[in-house]
């Protein structure tokens, strides 16, 4: 079926700590994934993407890991800051650009 889900609905971390947000997907044929950040009252904002021919990709303070064997994605945020507080979605891109989103994880950063 078409579903991308998240393990935890909420995550609270201390400022400066690292954050890890997890995501499971069900379609083993999926080959392109994106992490989006959505702040209150705004549309989703692209963070980082990864294709299935990779198992790790790094950006600025963010790393995405892909484990195709267990159909699992994770987003790691280093040195989490208050501005990182938002809802994070993983999304799977199907052919033609249709995005299948999970429910989201709300990240709360404590000062």
């Amino acid at each position, binding site marked *: 079926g078409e579903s991308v889900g998240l393990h935890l609905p909420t995550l609270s971390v201390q400022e400066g700590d690292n954050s890890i947000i997890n995501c499971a997907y069900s379609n083993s044929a999926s080959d392109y994934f*994106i992490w989006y950040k959505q702040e209150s009252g705004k549309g989703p904002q692209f963070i980082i993407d990864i294709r299935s021919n990779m198992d790790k990709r790094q950006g600025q303070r963010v790393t995405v890991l892909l484990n195709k064997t267990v159909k699992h994605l994770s987003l790691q945020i280093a040195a989490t800051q208050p501005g990182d507080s938002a809802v994070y979605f993983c999304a799977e891109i199907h052919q033609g*650009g249709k995005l299948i989103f999970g429910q989201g994880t709300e990240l709360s950063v404590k000062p």
Partner: protein
Amino acid sequence: DAGVTQSPTHLIKTRGQQVTLRCSPKSGHDTVSWYQQALGQGPQFIFQYYEEEERQRGNFPDRFSGHQFPNYSSELNVNALLLGDSALYLCASSPIGKPDTEAFFGQGTRLTVV
């Protein structure tokens, strides 16, 4: 570059009415997709427009229809509004010739049906 712009930002309609939401894609983008995001949920794909035609459609009833204009802008129309149609409606655009790449989202239109 203004990015993806949507109008209006907020809208209140009465059950049974019809609504039209508008979207202008990012410069250089020709593919427009619409998503519905209920409170506390991830966005759900409604449909996608490319070359002024609907190319893909999600599991939404025929009350949801759309249009794309020659300048790539798009409209989403919803007829016979239900209370359950209350949601944030998001428009996303993708680059010319690259519909399978990252989509850029607008700020959304918050629709409330009363």
